[in-house]
């Protein structure tokens, strides 16, 4: 019995022991789910079509697109003024404004002005807080 359960671990390959076991368990579980839920999985096309049909595509993909743009621009803009956190500051203002406008239902000048104030004050306050009291450099 002891010989069946005995294991010698080679230190040089010890980094692979646990990931392999976890990988095998994960694969087995996936197979079990695929077998059990085969009917539901076969109907997944309809499910995703329904998800897409009910989705507010402008707001959802708008959020993803703007977030992607925000993250992509932060470092290049920040590199213009290195180690000042202005990349974060100058990208966050239009980002907050754009997302706010995207999420606004009835767009009025009054609401837009309130949002613009938040879009300026919010990032400036956060930038100041992290740059001065916290001494953390933003992008």
């Amino acid at each position, binding site marked *: *019995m*002891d010989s069946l*359960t*005995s*294991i*010698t*671990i080679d*230190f*040089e390959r*010890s*980094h*692979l*022991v*646990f*990931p392999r*076991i*976890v990988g095998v*368990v*994960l694969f087995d*579980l996936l197979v*079990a*789910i695929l077998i*059990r839920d085969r009917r539901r999985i076969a109907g997944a096309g309809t499910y*995703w079509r329904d998800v897409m049909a009910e*989705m*507010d595509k402008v*707001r*959802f993909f708008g*959020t*993803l697109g703007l*977030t*992607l743009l925000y*993250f992509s621009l*932060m*470092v290049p803009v920040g590199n213009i003024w290195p180690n000042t956190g202005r990349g*974060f500051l100058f990208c966050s203002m239009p*980002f*907050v404004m754009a*997302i*706010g*406008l*995207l*999420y*606004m*239902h009835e767009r009025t000048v009054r*609401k837009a002005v309130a*949002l613009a104030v*938040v*879009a300026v004050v*919010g990032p400036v306050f*956060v930038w100041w*807080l*992290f740059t001065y*009291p*916290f*001494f*953390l*450099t*933003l*992008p």
Partner: protein
Amino acid sequence: MFELISPLFLSLVVGGTFIGIVFGAIPGMTATMAVAVCLPITYSLGLENGLALLLGLYVGGISGGLVPAILLGIPGTPSSITTTFDGFPLAQRGEGEKALRIGIVASFVGGLISLLVLWLFAPALADFAIKFSYVEKFLIILFALTVMAALSRDMLIGIFSGVLGIFIALIGTYDISDGGNGRYRLIPPGTEYWLDSGFSLLPVLIGLFGLAAILEQAERGVPKGHSKEDLKVGGKSTFSFSIFRGQTLNLIRSSGIGTFVGILPGVGGSAASILAYSNAKTFSKKPEAFGKGEPSGIIASESGNNGLTGGALVPLLSLGIPGDSTTALLIGAFTLQGIQVGPLFIGNNPDTWNAMIFAMLVANIAMLMMMYVAIRYFALVVTVPKHILFPVILMMCVIGAYTINYGIMFDVWTLLIFGIAGWVFVKLRLEVAPFIIGFILGPSAEVYFVKSLESFGTLGIFFTKSWIAMVLWVLIIGSVAGSVLLSRRQAARDRAAG
């Protein structure tokens, strides 16, 4: 301990509780999100002050959910689902303020009872756990994962989600500081530079609980905010403590259920309040009144979900295993300050432990006072427009992810990756809580498993090491068998119901 409790400490607890209530009161925002967004602020506060803020957010966030649950019939947080059953009918009868105050007092009692359990139970459990070797520690993690999976909506999916979390956590170097050999594994070619240390915990959490929640709201078109006219605070009948006459058993039982559910890893507040509510209904002399504005229902639900707060900290502070998603984030606060939570935490950091207990006590008292006195004003929080809140929260998520490792842009991309993953998880019906617990515990599970085998050279050691190991196996098998039995019974009931 008292030198740690400064005016700043108290202000942070009270301020955190206030912000937490605001987050909890806005549908779509949760206590977890509040902690995720405010975590980077704890950087320069030090451990005790940082925890003061986060614990205030936690207590406030769980409590605030009752506001929209009662006034609008929409749970502010998942843990307030059952509060809507009786709270909203009361509000519709013009007794909103009374219902709110019943919920507030019940929340306070639930919070205090769970705090008492935390104070009494966590040090004892930690003292016991100190004796654990790597074998027992591995089995404890296995037990935590099976309990969590067993209590998932679907056990197979729950286990899969937990194991997926472990797998993702293993990406990166097998750390030399953990006794590893410093080699890479599971890293796609060309990504070694970014994934050298794998995905950082906090960007993953902020992505799953912050960005994913906002993506979900965006998908649904960011539902319009509510106007003051929608709020049925009412004033027809006034609150009186006599409502709690005859409710002592309900309060203690529901708080106890909430605390127990909190101790179980990865089980959220919604399970706590649902269990407490269904028990209160079962043992009630007038179960037919439940769902029609019965105060006992609100008492059970709110004392149950606030009972979670202390309970969820028990496994975190004694074993290093988070009890729910919010306490998983608290691990981040400890990590930021270079402190590891586990069996040695309370013994090695008695002042921090006492400060945490005190912070929880103050947070509960602050919650009671603020909400009881100013509930009409807190109710207005529901009307804050989401087009202002959500962009600011998104910005704070970015700050949180970026600053966690002192300025690594890859952490911001991690936030986006896991934000999208969190949205996809919901669509695929994967369970986020087991995933997170698996992700947090995966690296420790690996160290304990591999080191046990390196030391003893046999798999049999996991069964024969000690009586504790054997008891843990009984618990592991029992939790799986119990779950299978329950799901079969449920399936039979569903079939019978047609």
